[in-house]
Structure formats: structure tokens, C-alpha cells
């Protein structure tokens, strides 16, 4: 084997409470298309940010062309021939293509010369671009071209692409692959981040698989099946639930052909989501983030309205009711983002308890706030859910992530919901808080409520759920009993093969 282009030796990076990367090592050869594969939170983003100079590793080393390589900032990485195309673009809509490209360059050539170069490079790689067009007028795929061409103008030796196809149409994906293959043939190495197994099989020559910050495997995608790669990604040590005593009661929540267009250009619209949730049941909804999870939560919390009969609570259509009316009827929700969505950062804990609790806990009287009851409710949450805080008059943002999450979950659980929907209930939360939250949700179901848990953490879902479904590209699979599932089956469902699993 020739001298590797980039060798990564034992990189580690820890964030408070999370070991994002743990002793990661692999090499990339010149001209190689190398896949970095893993679930959300596996540490892919942290790793490429270290290669691109956005994040400094705690320990470990890198060599580029055999020379020591440790960029302090992206401009250093770019100067040494490492470019990166982010999943979310950093382009100014009111400026044209050439102007946007100029902004990212250290010493930009004169305007006409640059425009000429943009035309040459973009045509040479099959990504035609008109330098004078406004970004605001371009499609998402064309915007990505701008980002790619911006990198290509600096003659990179290594191009990092972070989930490039998540925003593209199938035709655009084909064009992109042609370009990437051409670059590879010219000796440019590509580090390709994705969780779309079919794409990796079609495009990449080798793959490194990350799980919980560690390299768990390497493979040659062409010699694997989407199946086998999914298994490597999820890991063999996934604890399967033992059969749980579970006698489902009446249907509490029913989704019937729920459809909701996403307002976020990077979001996924929900299409024909149908499921039933029964009393005493915890339904885990897995799947990779950005496949409609946020939209599902908004459609259930009532922040986005849908047709009346798409969401039924105890048989009554409530799809057209807003959050307050749904809470009054017993459908509660806890969104993923703690600060700024589930809680107002600068408001006190007692006000944040009031925020979602005032209807059910009767914290108002003819419109006036019953301050005593409001504070009692907040104190109750703090003591019953072991929220560590000096007092309920402290601002929400002064709490640690885990403590605030316990407060947010506790706030909903203590209201005695009929159905509770939570999104990423333990994301970024330390182990003991996570365990407490999971137990609280299980207890809630044991008392006869129905709980819908949306999460990217398969271990968590397997630990908690009675039944399990996967949300992929806005579609949901048919929920199945969790204890009968195999890793193989989950892998299939996650790969977007919903048809097969739905009939299995």
C-alpha cells in the first residue's frame, strides 16, 4: 500500500458527560472514497470537525502526507488541502454565487477572473453554475454545488462531505456521485459521512464504522450487504428486552393517515403515519434524526394543526385543536430541545412549570395566576424528580442539561397525562438522570397511561419499549412487539425498508 494521505492515530475528544470520540484511528489513501458510518451521536461530526480544525482533540495525532497535521482553524486545514462541505450551508441568499465564494477565500482573485474559474471548474466536474445568479434563486441541490465548487477552487487533496445527499433529489444524487467518482479518479480522497447504506455500497471503497465514539469495525462496502452494515452500526451487544408482562388496554391514541408538510427546508414531511397506542403501552419510535421526528412531535403537541381525525384521543378527533385544548384532554408532550422550546431560558422554574401545567393543574382562577399553587407545583416537580437547583426562582438556563430535562419530563408526568409524547427524553443527559427519566416514563405506563418515546438511542428504546416502530423519511413502520425483534430486523427497518417489515 502506498503512503496514506491522512492517517488518524488515537484521536479522543470528551465533552461534559459524553465521550464523543474514544481512541479513533484509521487511514485514508489518496483517491479513496472512504465512508464514515454510524448512528446519530456515534461521533462522526466531532471526528470530522477535528480533521477540519473546528474542534481540538484532547489527545491523539494526525499525519497528512506523512507530516504532522493538527489544524487550529479551518483556514489552516484549507491551506493544507482539506476542504469540507457541510450538511447545512453557510451561504448568503441576497448575494450571488461569485460573491459567496469570494467570502470564503483567503486571497480571492479579481471578480472576472474568479467568475471564469467558477465556470471552468463547475463545468469540468459536471456541476454547471452561473456565477452571477443569486443564491436565493437556487435550488437546494444547486446551493450544494456552490459549496462543492468553493472547495474545489482550492484544489483539495481531501474533501469531507457531511451527509451530502440528505437534501438532494435522486437525480441530483446521481450527478453528485458522478462528480465524486471523477474527483476520486484524479486522486482526491473523499471522506463521506452518511447513514444511507445503499449509497455507501454504491459509492465508497472502504468504510470505518463508529459506535459510541469508538471504531467498532471496518469493511469494504461492496462486499457487504446493507443488512450486515446496519448490524455493525447498531452493534452486536444491543440488549434485547426480555418478554415483559404487558396486557395492553383500550386504544388511547390513534394516528390515522397523519400527514404534515415540514416548514424546515432540511426537515422531512410526514406522510400517511398511522399507529395505535394502548393504555399501559410504551411505544418506542426509532430512526435517524431528521426523518420526521420533530414534525411528529409538533403534530402531536398541537403546535402544528392537522385534520381533525388524523389524531384521535380515546376515539375523539383532536387534530385541529391547539396545545392548550389537547392538554386539557390529556395529551401532553415534551419536545427534544429543552432550552427555548420545552422551557423559556430566562424564566424561573416556577414560571416554566406554569408554562405547560396551568391548564391541568388549575394554576389560574378566572385568568389570574394562583401564585401559591404555581410555586407548589414547581416545588413538587423539583422534589419528586430530584432536580438539583438552589430554588424555584432560578432561571431555567442556570440548570444543567440533565436537571432541566428531569424538570421538563417531571412537569408533564406529574400532570397525570392520558398520553405522553416525548422526543429524545435522555439526549445529552448523564446516566443516572437518564435512568430516572426512563423509570418515570415506565411507571407512568404502569399506571395506565400510554407513552410514545421518540429517540435515536436504540439501547434506550429496547430497554423501555413494549412495542417498536421506525420513522424513516416521514413514513412509519407498523409497530411490533419489542421482545420479538432481532437486530437484523431493526437494521432492515432503519434502512428504510418499511414495506418488508410492515408485512413481516
Amino acid at each position: 500500500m502506498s503512503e496514506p494521505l491522512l492517517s488518524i492515530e488515537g484521536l479522543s475528544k470528551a465533552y461534559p458527560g459524553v465521550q464523543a470520540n474514544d481512541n479513533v484511528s484509521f487511514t485514508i489513501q489518496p483517491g479513496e472514497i472512504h465512508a464514515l458510518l454510524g448512528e446519530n451521536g456515534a461521533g462522526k461530526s466531532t471526528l470530522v470537525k477535528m480533521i477540519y480544525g473546528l474542534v481540538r482533540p484532547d489527545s491523539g495525532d494526525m499525519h497528512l502526507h506523512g507530516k504532522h497535521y493538527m489544524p487550529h482553524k479551518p483556514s489552516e486545514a484549507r491551506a493544507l488541502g482539506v476542504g469540507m462541505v457541510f450538511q447545512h450551508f453557510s451561504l448568503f441568499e441576497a448575494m450571488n454565487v461569485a460573491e459567496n465564494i469570494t467570502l470564503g477565500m483567503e486571497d480571492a482573485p479579481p471578480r472576472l477572473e474568479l467568475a471564469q474559474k467558477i465556470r471552468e471548474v463547475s463545468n469540468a466536474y459536471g456541476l454547471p453554475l452561473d456565477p452571477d445568479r443569486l443564491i436565493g434563486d437556487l435550488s437546494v441541490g444547486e446551493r450544494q454545488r456552490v459549496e462543492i465548487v468553493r472547495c474545489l477552487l482550492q484544489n483539495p487533496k481531501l474533501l469531507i462531505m457531511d451527509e451530502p445527499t440528505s437534501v438532494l433529489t435522486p437525480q441530483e444524487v446521481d450527478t453528485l456521485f458522478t462528480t465524486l467518482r471523477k474527483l476520486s479518479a484524479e486522486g482526491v480522497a473523499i471522506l463521506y459521512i452518511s447513514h444511507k447504506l445503499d449509497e455507501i455500497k454504491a459509492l465508497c471503497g472502504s468504510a470505518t464504522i463508529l459506535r459510541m465514539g469508538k471504531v467498532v469495525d471496518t469493511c469494504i462496502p461492496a462486499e457487504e450487504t446493507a443488512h450486515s452494515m446496519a448490524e455493525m452500526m447498531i452493534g452486536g451487544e444491543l440488549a434485547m428486552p426480555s418478554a415483559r408482562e404487558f396486557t395492553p388496554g383500550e386504544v388511547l391514541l390513534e394516528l390515522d393517515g397523519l400527514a404534515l408538510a415540514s416548514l424546515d427546508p432540511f426537515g422531512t414531511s410526514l406522510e400517511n403515519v398511522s399507529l395505535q397506542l394502548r393504555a399501559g403501552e410504551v411505544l418506542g419510535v426509532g430512526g435517524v434524526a431528521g426523518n420526521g421526528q420533530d414534525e411528529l412531535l409538533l403534530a402531536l403537541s398541537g403546535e402544528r394543526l392537522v385534520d381533525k381525525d388524523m389524531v384521535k384521543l380515546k376515539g375523539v378527533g383532536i387534530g385541529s385543536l391547539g396545545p392548550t385544548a389537547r392538554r386539557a384532554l390529556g395529551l401532553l408532550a415534551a419536545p427534544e430541545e429543552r432550552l427555548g422550546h420545552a422551557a423559556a431560558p430566562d424564566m424561573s422554574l416556577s414560571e416554566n412549570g406554569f408554562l405547560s401545567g396551568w391548564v391541568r393543574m388549575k394554576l389560574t382562577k378566572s385568568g389570574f395566576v394562583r401564585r401559591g399553587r404555581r410555586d407548589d407545583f414547581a416545588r413538587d416537580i423539583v422534589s419528586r424528580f430530584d432536580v438539583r437547583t438552589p430554588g424555584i426562582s432560578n432561571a431555567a438556563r442556570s440548570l444543567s442539561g440533565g436537571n432541566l430535562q428531569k424538570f421538563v419530563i417531571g412537569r408533564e408526568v406529574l400532570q397525570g397525562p392520558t398520553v405522553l409524547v416525548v422526543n429524545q427524553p435522555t439526549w445529552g443527559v448523564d446516566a443516572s438522570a437518564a435512568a430516572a427519566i426512563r423509570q418515570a416514563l415506565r411507571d407512568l405506563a404502569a399506571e395506565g397511561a400510554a407513552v410514545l418515546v421518540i429517540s435515536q438511542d436504540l439501547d434506550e428504546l429496547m430497554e423501555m419499549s413494549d412495542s417498536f416502530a421506525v420513522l424513516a423519511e416521514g413514513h412509519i413502520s407498523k409497530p411490533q412487539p419489542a421482545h420479538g425483534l432481532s437486530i437484523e430486523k431493526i437494521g432492515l427497518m432503519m434502512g428504510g425498508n418499511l414495506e418488508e417489515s410492515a408485512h413481516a
Partner: protein
Amino acid sequence: MLRLEPRLQPSRPMRLITPVLAVLLTMLFGGLLFAALGVDPVEAIKLIFWDPFFHPTYGAYSMSQLLVKAGPLILIAVGLSIGFRAGVWNIGAEGQFIMGAISGGAVGLALYPAAGIWVLPLMTVAAALGGFLWAMIPALLKIKFNANEILVSLMLVYVAENFLAAMVTGPLQNPQGFGFPESRSFTGVDSTTLPMLYQPLGMHAGVVVAFIVVIAAYVMMERHLLGFQIKLTGESPRAAKFAGVKPAVIVAITLGISGALAGMAGLFELTGPAGKLTTNFPVGYGFTAIIVAFLGRLNPFGIVLAGILMALTYIGGELTQLTLGMPAAAISVFQGMMLFFLLAVDVFVNYRLVWKKEVK
């Protein structure tokens, strides 16, 4: 090097000290400005902050102007502060003030010269309605088309000013006024004259209304669900949506309240100090009230203090013009400085200054 570090909890003492600090800084830099204009700065500052109360000749008259000037500022600023808490930026209170005066005045003129104590309340209701409707224009445009309420409400000030000019040379012109561009005098008829309750401080009925509104606004913002929803919308729009607050409703309510209060202030000005509609009727209370609202920390009681302080700079400013020949614009700059310094020192509420060696 000096660095700003965010505080986990906003500092309460700082919240209370910053307005005082801002006033002191304004005195200092305002003094420098006055010195540059060739005026003795100590004398000028004394004229603005001290003489309105204690000057042997002007004192008594100045005192009687204090609440006359503070009243409309407080009434408008309380309305604006409610919107500002929700992140709804009504910059057009001046226009709503004018439209209130025109609507209320038109009712008064239509009834002229009817007697009876019901005339003035009726005019007040009409004025509130006029200001409310004028504020509904930016509200609806924001709700329907997401138009920026700052620009729309501000532009409508100039429309209102021209509408006023058209009215006083047209339908509302005094038929016995020898063609002057002005309406009949409202203070010439008892039923359309705002009662003066305590002359030495200039406490007219409008000031009483302003104080009642201050208390009502405090109760609403601190004790009522609506006040909570307004604050929540301003603090965190997404959390507000999660809590079930409809943003469009908040926009309409907050703009509506501030418009109605500005309209009422316009009527009190018209039936009291101004006496009649002329093209010189608007004197900028609607804009100064923005400063008052922030100087008072968007808190109704803070606004009372800030309104009185700002009234003082108006009165003192007139004294400096009278006795020192200082240009009127200088006092406007002085008032603007106060807002500038308040916003500047405000940083210390949420940040603290720390001395740190630079780490490489």
C-alpha cells in the same frame, strides 16, 4: 485583558443601578456637549435637573408643568412596554397619538357645543378606538404578510401627520377661524375641557387615568395569564407556541393596547394643554415614550419614574433655551443620550466584566 462573561443569573442590583448610572453618564457627556456649544455645563445641568423644582422665579410654573408633560409620556410608554415585552416593536405611537386626538376631537366637534359630563368620556372612547385602529394596520400586515411592524408603524406616523394637516384645513377646520389651519378650541367649552385636579403639580384627569393604567398594566403583566403569555412570547417564541400561545393574537393585543393608550394620550393632550388641533399638535411624545419605556425597565412603576425624569428634561430644556439660549436640538440629543447610555450599561445586567490573562 478585559472580557465580558455571561452571568448565569441576571444581576438584580445591576438592574436597579443601571438607570441611575445611565442618567449620571448622560449628565457627564451631555455636559461635555453643552460645553462644546459654549454653554456653562454646570449651569445647564443645574437648570435641567434642579431649577424646575427650586428656582425662585420659574420653580412654581415648572412644577405645574411636570405631570402635564409626564402624564402622556407615562400613558404611552406603559402601552409600548407591554408590546416590547412580547417582542412587538411599535415605533409609531406618535401616529396613534395623532389619530386618537383626531378621532376623539372629531366626536367632540360633531357634538359641539353640547354640554354634559358624558361628552368627554365619549370622546375618550373614540380616541382610544382611533389609536387602536391605527395600530391594527401594522398588526394585520404583520399577521397576514409578516410585514415588519417597526417600519410600518413608523411610516404611519408620517401618514397621520399629513392626515392631521388635511383635517385642520378641511373638515375639522374652525368655521370661525378666519381660514387658519386649526380646529375650534376644545378648552373654550366646559364639556370638552379636561378637568384640572391639582394645579401646582399639573395633575389633570388624564394623569389620573395614566396612574390607573399603570396599576392595571402591572396587575396584568405580573398576575394574569395574558401577561405571562406576553412575556413568554418575548422571551422565547417557540416555548410560547409550545405553551399554546397564538403569536397572531399576541401581536394584535399588544399593538391594540399600545395604540389605544396612545390615542387616549392624544385626546388628553388635545382637551388639556394643547386646546385645539393644529399642524403643530404633535410634539414627539410618542417617540420620547420609547425612551421612557426602556428607561423604566419596561416596568409600569419604573415608567412612572422615568416619565417624570423625562418630563424634567423637557421643562429644564425649555429653561436652558430661555435663559442660556441653548438650541432645542441639544436637549433632544440629551434625551437620546439617556437611552443610548441605558442600553450600553445594560450589558452589565447579563454580563460581568472580568480581568483575565489571555490564554494561548
